[in-house]
């Protein structure tokens, strides 16, 4: 790697250096990831310089573990950065909602009490919201309702997955299945996507 700046290295050069466990290449990757994390997450109050250094260090190890899954259609450094950002934000999300009770989130969220729509927008938009509320109460399973409500409360997927003792992918699938059911529920009542879009835009 001597003679060329890390920013000029090819994908192949990065791969070869990391596979050979070249200390200079590993350090160059750590520096690159750390700079990227500082640029993208450095403004956050919950992410100090020491955190970002730790995340970059851990991300290097994660990238090394995943080298065989790298596909050459992407620039190597962008691929590595995507891993570093996922790792960092997952840690920050877990930290931010560590103490949140899922039950409390659900209780504070969407009510299935029809009186809850009092004071809402009247007219077609209000009717659509009322129908959606009914859909949540009647068309979803308890687990789907739990996931949807937690998402609306901003509970991070990783935290939700840990509380439900399932993989994050399972949380996403539950959410997707629930959203599809609600979309069909609205469509059955005449609220196709165009109509819903118009009502949402008419705020």
């Amino acid at each position: 790697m001597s003679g060329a700046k890390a920013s000029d290295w090819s994908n192949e050069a990065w791969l070869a250096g990391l596979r050979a466990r070249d200390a200079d290449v590993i350090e160059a990757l750590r520096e690159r990831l750390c700079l990227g994390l500082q640029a993208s997450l450095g403004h956050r109050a919950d992410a100090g310089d020491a955190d970002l250094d730790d995340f970059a260090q851990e991300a290097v190890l994660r990238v090394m573990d995943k080298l065989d899954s790298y596909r050459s259609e992407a620039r190597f450094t962008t691929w590595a950065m995507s891993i570093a950002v996922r790792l960092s934000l997952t840690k920050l999300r877990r930290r931010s909602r560590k103490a949140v009770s899922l039950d409390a989130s659900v209780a504070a969220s969407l009510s299935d009490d029809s009186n809850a729509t009092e004071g809402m927008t009247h007219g077609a938009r209000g009717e659509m919201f009322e129908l959606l509320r009914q859909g949540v109460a009647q068309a979803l399973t308890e687990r789907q309702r739990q996931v949807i409500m937690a998402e609306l409360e901003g509970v991070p997927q990783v935290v939700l997955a840990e509380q439900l003792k399932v993989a994050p992918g399972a949380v996403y699938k539950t959410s997707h299945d629930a959203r599809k059911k609600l979309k069909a529920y609205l469509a059955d009542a005449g609220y196709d996507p165009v109509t819903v879009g118009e009502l949402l835009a008419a705020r």
Partner: protein
Amino acid sequence: MTADERHLDKLARLVNETAEEEIDCDQFLEIVAVFLNRVARNLDPTAACEALKQHVRVCPECKEELLAIAQAEGVDIACLEGEI
């Protein structure tokens, strides 16, 4: 807006953007680098790119990651305004 109405508004938007088939967050991570490199080079979006854009419209966490990766890599994604 009441808290309930805010939730219903948010839910209605998520439901309306829902597709029959969606990529999940792991699949998003597999293709986001390719996506950003294509955006940076002004290449036409592929089917995978369209799937990624749909995913970030229903997944705020992956949208946050997309914005952060773009910022870290210095990729201008202003051209995606209105699409994500």
